[in-house]
């Protein structure tokens, strides 16, 4: 199984590095660092694969909605389109505007991409026995949200460092938006935490094990939280109808207006990495993580991490469907919606969950 393989590879690298360290008398600290780097490489490869898939899907789904074909020419049904885009972007000239802040201009996309990727280390990809999880933090869900919200710094650095008014406006909008929607997102997560009694993503997944009926999706008292999560996650990933930071018709390309070449590529990849981690988190919080929807009595030939990816892709597809259907909100409407609509809804969701726990319907976190 691929996930075990990954684990084994990580272990082998770790052991090999440790042996080498003993032989050469290198302090243990370096070995740990090396192991971390290996883990990071694994995550990045995984993320890149998923991002390529998501970008390809985006173009195909939008094509289907708009009665077009989407990429067709590169590879079978255009499957190699995104790698080709990546290849091209790698060899493009990297322009730093004359009056830009060079350090911030470079730091922006790096921060944005790295923070979008780091969150993946706490995702439990498969059942705990295999432990296909780089690290199991007991506050995993908070870690994901906290790390991904650091991405705002990258956007701000890029927008500010570009010395472009569109970029600055886009960055300002992005910061305001992401901070606001994070509140709503956290309120939705609080409901799940109340229900499952765990802040660890592995714990939350474990709580939904057993059967399909255990999924938070099918617990009616979780529905307000689910609704809240869907809306807030679209806002968090800056997609239509909440895509005001890069509203094409207003701000050209928003905070990445001045970025070319690989730096733009980092923003682009980071955006989809961000989208994907939000979708994966959503799948873990509400769709039972890696658990199969099949009854436990049936033999399940599909490994857990495929189930998780599938669920995340389903969430992404819904987000794409919304993106290619709705118009864009205005910046003040967006903020009003967050603070006057979503935050109260969050409190309602918490109250409903609390009530359900009080009535003994819900788990109450044991």
């Amino acid at each position, binding site marked *: 199984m691929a996930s075990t393989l990954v684990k084994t590879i990580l272990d082998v690298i770790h052991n090999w590095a440790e042996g080498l360290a003993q032989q050469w008398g290198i302090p243990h600290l370096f070995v740990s660092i090396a192991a971390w780097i290996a883990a990071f490489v694994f995550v990045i490869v995984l993320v890149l694969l998923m991002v390529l898939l998501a970008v390809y899907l985006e173009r195909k789904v939008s094509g289907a909605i708009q009665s077009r074909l989407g990429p067709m020419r590169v590879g079978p049904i255009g499957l190699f389109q995104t790698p080709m885009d990546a290849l091209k972007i790698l060899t493009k000239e990297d322009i730093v505007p004359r009056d830009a802040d060079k350090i911030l201009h470079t730091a922006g996309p790096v921060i944005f991409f790295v923070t979008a990727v780091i969150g993946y280390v706490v995702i439990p990809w498969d059942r705990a026995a295999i432990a296909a999880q780089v690290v199991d933090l007991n506050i995993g869900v908070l870690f994901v949200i906290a790390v991904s919200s650091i991405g705002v710094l990258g956007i701000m650095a890029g927008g500010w460092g570009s010395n472009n008014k569109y970029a600055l406006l886009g960055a300002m909008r992005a910061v305001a938006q992401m901070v606001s929607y994070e509140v709503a997102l956290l309120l939705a997560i609080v409901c799940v935490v109340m229900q499952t009694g765990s802040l660890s993503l592995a714990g939350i997944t474990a709580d939904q094990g057993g059967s399909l009926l255990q999924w938070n999706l099918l617990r009616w008292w979780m529905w307000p939280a689910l609704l809240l999560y869907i809306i807030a996650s679209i806002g968090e990933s800056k997609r239509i109808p909440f895509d005001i930071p890069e509203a094409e*018709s207003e701000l050209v390309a928003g905070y990445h207006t001045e970025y070319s070449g690989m730096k733009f590529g980092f923003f682009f990849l980071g955006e989809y990495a961000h989208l994907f981690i939000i979708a994966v988190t959503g799948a873990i919080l509400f769709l039972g993580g890696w658990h199969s929807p099949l009854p436990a009595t049936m033999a399940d030939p599909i490994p857990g991490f495929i189930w998780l990816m599938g669920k995340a892709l389903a969430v992404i597809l819904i987000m794409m469907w919304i993106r290619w259907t*709705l*118009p864009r909100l*205005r*910046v003040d409407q967006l903020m009003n919606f967050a603070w006057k609509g979503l935050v109260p809804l969050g409190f309602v969701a918490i109250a409903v969950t609390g009530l359900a726990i009080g009535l003994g319907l819900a788990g109450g976190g044991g």
Partner: protein
Amino acid sequence: MSETTQAPLTTEEIVVNLGPQHPSTHGVMHFVVTIDGETIRECVPHIGYLHSSLEKIAETLRYEQFITNTDRFDYLNGLGNELCYVQAVERLLGIEPPPRTVFIRTLMAELKRISSHLVYLGCYGNDIGAMTVFLHAFREREPLMDMFEAVTGGRLLYNYLRIGGLRNDLPTGFTDQLHRFLDYLPRRLEEMNDLLTSNRIFIARTRGIGILTARQALSFGVTGPTLRGCGVPYDLRKLRPYAAYDQVEFDVPSFPEGDCLARHLVRMEEMNQSMRIIRQLMEKMPEGEIQADVPRRIKPEAGEVYERVESPRGELGCYLLSDGGAKPYRMHWRGPSFYNLQALPVMVRGGLLADFIATLGSLDPIAPDIDR
């Protein structure tokens, strides 16, 4: 109780240059927008990036040669411009085109109006952020393009009308093609309305945005759907019927609100009215000649004429001054977008940057119509 004096929070205004190359400027226009945060304090349009000196060129071309250039004024309304020009020359010459010609001209002008409004719809969807509407509107437009191609040979620019006639009659099979389209379009428009017009986000983005009162609109010389969106049913097709418009029944939609939504609704309804006109024209279409007797060398007597027609953007005027030669002595065009755009600073002041885009899109300006 001690009074604490607090200096008002001062914020710096920034000047944003929208255009000349900007995704939503509908061609090349340049707006210097002063914003405070996101609120627009001032907006100064700069135009002329597509000033192609057509009025000067007109003085070097013979009357019949210039027809092809009229398409280039407002490229979304090519046949409407040709209609305006040809009518002006005919009035100068005192020629009456045959009835079938008049009907076909009216028919084509109305088809072109639908096509232009479809482009508006698509671009407006894009401005508001609904990308899919853009692609769907262009898809709906393609059957129209096929029809234009069948009749005139061109997709966008035609050179179809002739002084006193047409280049060719309607081709065989055109009636079927047209009726298929007329059956098809209302369904698609309904779908568009479901997708965009009745969308709550769309309404929130357009209702009460970019308000222009009727008085302001008239004083700025605003015409067309923008003026009708202010509640003034000013439509030259009704008020001063030209071509075959006095032989068909249609309503002039007008909404009193004067905001972006009203202008949008006017255009959506105008497409329905255009279809109504086309149906009647097809029913009443007379048989017969398509070319009146026109002298070989077109040399109108010295004189002048000011012809006005209703283009999809408003009142299109063509002034022709003849000195008795084969070339116009002076030609002037009143581009409706030229005057419509003048009202933009009034409409966007105090709104947000996003409202600016929504308002600009709802004016449906066309760059060569402004700059000529």
